[in-house]
C-alpha cells in the first residue's frame, strides 16, 4: 500500500497523545499513513487551518465541530467528528488562597465536586472581590463543565463570578499573579499549577461528568467525503494507539514520547500524573484517580451522538445559540459514529449497539440524568 500523507494539527495537551503515539509508535505507518503533526498555538488557528485545508484533521475541542456547524465560527466550513480522543483529562484548579477560603467554608479536602461547590458558594456569598475563572475557549468542554459545576452548586456564572479566556500555558502564572482565582483546563496545566505551588486541584472532569469526552478528531467534512479510505486508515491507527495507551505498562514510555521537544516539551513526570491518574492535588498530597484520563476503556474513542447533544444543550443554556429542531439536528450530525464503526469494524472489537445512550442519574455529580431523546425538557429545566 502506498503511503497516504495526512497532516494533523494539535495543541500541546495530554490528550494529543493518541495522534502522537499513532505516529511515533509506527501505528499510522502500519495503516499506510504518513502522519505529519503540526503543533499550534491556539484553537482558533486549529479551526481556521482545518477550514482552509492546511490541516486534513486536527485535535479539536469536543464542542468545536458543533459550533462550526451551527455557524458560530468566523469561518463557516462544516466539520465532523468521527472519533473521540479519550475520556476525561481535565480538572479545575484554584489558587492556594481561594482553596484556604474554601476549606474555611467547609470543603472536605477531597475531589468531590458537590461539597467543594457548596464551599465555593459560601465563599462567593461571603462577599469580597468578584472571583474570576479562566477557560481555554468558549466552545470547550472546560467552559461547559465549569459552568455546569458552578450552576449546580448555586453559583450563577457571569452574574456571581466571571469566566475569561486564557491560553493554557499562561494559566499557572495567572493564578500565581492573582489575575484569576481558578481555571478549568486539560492536563498537564493543572499539574503545572500545582507543581508551581500556586494552585490546588479541587475536582476533575471525571467526577463532574463521568465518562465524558473532551477532545475529538475534527475533520473537514469535504476532506472526509473525498478521502474515505485515508480517514478510515487514520481512525484505525488512532484506535490502535488508544489501545496501546490504555495499557498501564506503556504509560512511562507514552509520557516520555509526549514530553519530547516536538510535542509538549515538558518533563515526562508531569505528564505521567494525568496519564496514570496519580495526581498531586496540592504540593505533597497525592491521590489516585483511576478514571482521570481514559484513552481506551469504556468505548473511550466512540463519538456518541448523546455527547454532541449534551454539549448542544449547554450551548443553548449559556446563550451561544437559540434552540430549534434544525440546530439540534445539526449538532447531532456533527458526531459521526457511522464513520467510526465502518473504520474500526476490521478490528472485531465490541462496539456500542446504539449511537445514543441514556446518561443515568449517576453520570453527573448533581444526579440529574440526561436523556438524548428528550433534550427539549432538559433544555427547558436549565433555562437561565
Amino acid at each position, binding site marked *: 500500500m502506498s503511503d497516504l500523507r495526512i497532516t494533523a494539527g494539535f495543541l500541546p495537551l495530554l490528550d494529543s497523545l493518541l495522534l502522537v503515539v499513532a505516529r511515533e509508535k509506527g501505528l499510522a505507518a502500519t495503516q499506510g499513513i504518513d502522519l505529519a503533526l503540526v503543533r499550534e*498555538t*491556539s*484553537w*482558533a*488557528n486549529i479551526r*481556521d*487551518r482545518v*477550514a*482552509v*485545508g*492546511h490541516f486534513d484533521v486536527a485535535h479539536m475541542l469536543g464542542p468545536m465541530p458543533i459550533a462550526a456547524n451551527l455557524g458560530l465560527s*468566523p*469561518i*463557516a466550513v462544516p466539520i465532523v467528528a468521527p472519533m473521540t480522543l479519550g475520556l476525561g483529562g481535565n480538572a479545575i484548579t484554584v489558587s492556594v488562597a481561594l482553596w484556604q477560603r474554601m476549606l474555611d467554608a467547609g470543603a472536605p479536602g477531597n475531589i468531590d465536586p458537590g461539597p467543594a461547590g457548596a464551599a465555593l458558594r459560601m465563599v462567593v456569598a461571603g462577599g469580597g472581590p468578584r472571583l474570576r475563572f479562566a477557560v*481555554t*475557549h*468558549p466552545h470547550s468542554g472546560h467552559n461547559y463543565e465549569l459552568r455546569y459545576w458552578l450552576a449546580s452548586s448555586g453559583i450563577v456564572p457571569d452574574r456571581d463570578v466571571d469566566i*475569561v*479566556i*486564557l*491560553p493554557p*500555558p*499562561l494559566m499557572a502564572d495567572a493564578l500565581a499573579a492573582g489575575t484569576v482565582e481558578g481555571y478549568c483546563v486539560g492536563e498537564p496545566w493543572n499539574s503545572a499549577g500545582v507543581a508551581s505551588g500556586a494552585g490546588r486541584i479541587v475536582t476533575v472532569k471525571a467526577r463532574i461528568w463521568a465518562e465524558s469526552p473532551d477532545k475529538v478528531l475534527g475533520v473537514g467534512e469535504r476532506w472526509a467525503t473525498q478521502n474515505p479510505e485515508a480517514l478510515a486508515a487514520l481512525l484505525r491507527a488512532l484506535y490502535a494507539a488508544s489501545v496501546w495507551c490504555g495499557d498501564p505498562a506503556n504509560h512511562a514510555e507514552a509520557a516520555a514520547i509526549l514530553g519530547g521537544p516536538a510535542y509538549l516539551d515538558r518533563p515526562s513526570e508531569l505528564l505521567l500524573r494525568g496519564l496514570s491518574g496519580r495526581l498531586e492535588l496540592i504540593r505533597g498530597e497525592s491521590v489516585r484517580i483511576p478514571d482521570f484520563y481514559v484513552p481506551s476503556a469504556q468505548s473511550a474513542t466512540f463519538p456518541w451522538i448523546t455527547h454532541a447533544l449534551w454539549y448542544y444543550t449547554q450551548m443553548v443554556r449559556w446563550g451561544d445559540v437559540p434552540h430549534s429542531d434544525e440546530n439540534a439536528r445539526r449538532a447531532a450530525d456533527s458526531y459521526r459514529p457511522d464513520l467510526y464503526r465502518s473504520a474500526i469494524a476490521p478490528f472485531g472489537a465490541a462496539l456500542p449497539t446504539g449511537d445514543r445512550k441514556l446518561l443515568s442519574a449517576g453520570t453527573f455529580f448533581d444526579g440529574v440524568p440526561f436523556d438524548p431523546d428528550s433534550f427539549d425538557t432538559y433544555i427547558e429545566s436549565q433555562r437561565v
Partner: protein
Amino acid sequence: MPSDELAILIVDEDRVRATIIEDGLREAGHQRVTVINSTQEVARRITEIAPDVVVIDLENPDRDRLEHFFTLSKALHRPVAMFVDRSDAAAIGAAIEAGVSAYVVDGLRKDRVKSILDMAVLRFNAYSRLQRELDEARTALEDRRVIDKAKAILIKQRGLSEADAYSLLRKTAMNQNRRIVDIAQSLVTAAGLLEP
C-alpha cells in the same frame, strides 16, 4: 469620530512587523491606524479605538482570548466575522498562509476591506521573506567565522599559507562529500578537545 474612514487596529507582538504593516496602510491612504503590542492593552483601549477592522498575527498565542474579546466587546457593536466574504476561500487561505487573521465588523462593503487585507497579507509575506534572508545571512556569516577559525588552526599547526589551508579544507570536503563548513567545524571541535 465623524468620519467614514475605517478605523484599523493591528495587534502584533512583533513591533517591526507591525510597523511595516502600519506604514503600508498609511501609504495607501488609511489615517486611522492603531498598533497595539500586548493583549492587556487591547482590553484597555478597545472602546476608545472602536475598530472596524482588526488584524492579528496567527502566531499570537493569545488569539483565542482576543477573538472571544472581540465577540463580546461592546466597542465592536456589530457582530464580527473573519474576513468579509466567507465564501472567498482562496483569499482566506492566502491570508492564513501568510499568518494573518482579520476580524471585520459586519456590514462593511467587501471592496473597502479587501484592499486592507490584501495589504496586510502582502506586508506579512514581505516581512517573512526579509526574516528568511536575514537568517540566511546570519548563517553565512557564522559559517565564514568557523572556516576562518579552521584556517587559522591549519596555518598555525601545519605552517600552511592561507590559500593552502583553504584548499586543504575544500579538498577534504570534496573527498568526504561534506560541506566545507562541516569539515571546518570538526577541525575546530577537535582542536578544542586537544587544548590543555
